[in-house]
């Protein structure tokens, strides 16, 4: 089963044009700068925006085809959505927000509430909150409720628009796992967080200026991001490790020094241009330095993207001139260094 979209959505002043996009099972991350059409893409699949031309099929049946006069309304598409602004029902208790979709599908109140409670437990909303109105909850709690509400009717396709933006960091890993959990579901994860892409996404769609600039597996799109914004975004390195104070020990035993304190499992992210390469051991202020074998160099105009093998598989963006000066070839050994202040710790 796939979601296939080939067509356009026209809004006042601009348009989103998508040519032959196929979304398979699992999590597909949708990335792109603000205003490139990420949300519009999600809304078109959900049936909240109509196609101006072209065709959308979900699991083989046509959901939208203006030329043929077909439009399946959102309520009959089985496409769930977690809105960026959440849109919880203020007049309903938390548990009835989550039970809403189940009730509309015909479940009786008791069954719907029981399933809703199970989901709320999964997303980590304490049962003391279930009988409150959404307004009484914190932003992070409300976000969990919104995710549970969208998951409740078991949609074929789930669209998650910037899901984890306001979730406190301690809960993100669990929600990420929940979003990535159901492999049969098609999940479109609209995101600004490189960790989302690195941890749960199987494929990436890059939007730029209302068109698809890149698509494919995470590896493929990282190699050919299609636009400058995505190149920078996907160039971000994501390394997992165990934090203790300002030290993070990675899986291969390398210890990174970071600027913020944390404890327990963390992700450390840093942009590719923050990695500096040297032929000899660097002196100076960079605390994080290690010796690495060079795996590959991709030259793109004046920029060279250097892929390092162990102990950390990271990417480094340097100028083509420095690459030439350092005489970088696959197999050579170089020193890599990173300033602690360039590292972002994500728990």
């Amino acid at each position, binding site marked *: 089963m796939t979601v296939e979209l080939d067509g356009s959505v026209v809004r006042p002043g601009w348009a989103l044009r998508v040519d032959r996009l196929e979304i398979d099972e699992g999590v597909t991350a949708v990335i792109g700068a603000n205003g490139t059409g990420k949300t519009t893409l999600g809304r078109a699949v959900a049936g909240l925006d109509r196609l101006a031309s072209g065709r959308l099929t979900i699991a083989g049946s046509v959901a939208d085809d203006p030329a043929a006069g077909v439009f399946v309304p959102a309520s009959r598409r*089985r496409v769930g959505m977690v809105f960026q602004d959440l849109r919880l029902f203020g007049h309903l208790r938390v548990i009835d927000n989550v039970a809403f979709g189940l009730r509309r599908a015909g479940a009786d109140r008791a069954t719907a509430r029981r399933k809703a409670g199970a989901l709320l437990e999964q997303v980590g909303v304490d049962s003391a909150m279930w009988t409150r109105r959404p307004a009484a909850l914190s932003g992070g709690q409300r976000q969990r409720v919104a995710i549970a509400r969208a998951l409740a009717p078991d949609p074929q396709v789930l669209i998650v628009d910037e899901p984890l933006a306001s979730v406190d960091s301690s809960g993100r890993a669990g929600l990420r796992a929940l979003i990535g959990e159901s492999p049969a579901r098609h999940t479109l994860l609209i995101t600004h967080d490189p960790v989302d892409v690195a941890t749960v996404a199987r494929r990436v769609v890059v939007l730029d200026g209302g068109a698809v600039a890149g698509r494919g597996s995470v590896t493929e799109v990282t190699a050919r991001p299609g636009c400058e914004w995505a190149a920078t975004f996907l160039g971000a390195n994501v390394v997992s490790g165990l934090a203790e104070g300002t030290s993070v020990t990675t899986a291969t035993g390398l210890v990174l020094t970071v600027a913020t304190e944390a404890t327990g499992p963390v992700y450390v992210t840093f942009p590719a241009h923050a990695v500096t390469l040297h032929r000899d051991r660097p002196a100076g202020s960079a605390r994080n330095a290690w010796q690495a074998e060079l795996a590959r160099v991709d030259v793109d105009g004046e920029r060279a993207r250097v892929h390092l093998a162990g102990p950390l598989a990271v990417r480094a963006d340097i100028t083509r001139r420095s690459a030439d000066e350092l005489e970088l070839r696959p197999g050579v050994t170089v020193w890599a260094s990173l300033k602690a202040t360039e590292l972002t710790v994500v728990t």
Partner: protein
Amino acid sequence: MNVSSGARAAPGPDPGVSRPPAALTAVGFVALGLLALPLVGLLQRAPWSALPSVLGESEVLEALRVSLVVSLLATAACVVLGLPLAFVLARRRLRFGRVVRAIVMLPMVLPPVVAGTALLFALGRRGLVGQWLDSWFGVSLPFTTAGAVVAAAFVALPFFVVTVEAALRQAGDDLDEAAATLGAGAWSTLAHVTLPTIRPALAAGTALAWARAVGEFGATLTFAGNFPGRTRTLPLETYLALERNPEAAVAISLVLMAVALAVLITLRDRWMPR
């Protein structure tokens, strides 16, 4: 002002910064006096001890019954007809939106006598629609209780529509979209999301429409006439009583004013601007 009392102070403009000039304040209080004076006048003339017997007169009780029947039926008509109209105004892009909205609000500013005259020419026995009602169904509205209901609904409808339309606009369609992605069809969304969300405005609009319907005089008199037990409502009874028995007029006026005040105070600052 110390810190704790400052934190409890009623919200509103800071008195120190935006206090109006003294002359403006003075004129403002004169205006308030103009609005409050009639109330004081009534209270001062009220025959407090005779009140129960005056209000217990059979004419007054009959007018009260007619008023209740007419105003409640008119309010029901306002809700049934006004809700769809509010949706049309709030959710549809109308070609002549400005004109349509002016027509909707017209009864609010039209002299009620004009409203009654217009109703007579539209729904009267020889009126535009009235002649068909008469010849096809044998229905004649003028000078019947049904006519009084139509007159009251005509003047009260805009109060309901305007209140509910504003709430629908403010609510937007964000929650409706969320409901749709959860499998709720149009009617289901209306019943489970939209109407509960605007419930305060529904209550406010209903109360305002009812208060206006209770107070209706001019259109009722012109269109429905003044027949005891059929179309003679409390306001009409008040006007007649002024000649016959001024004490009764004052007593009924007090009742009507108390009803109006009760509606406004019940609406409180939740639905009325502070």
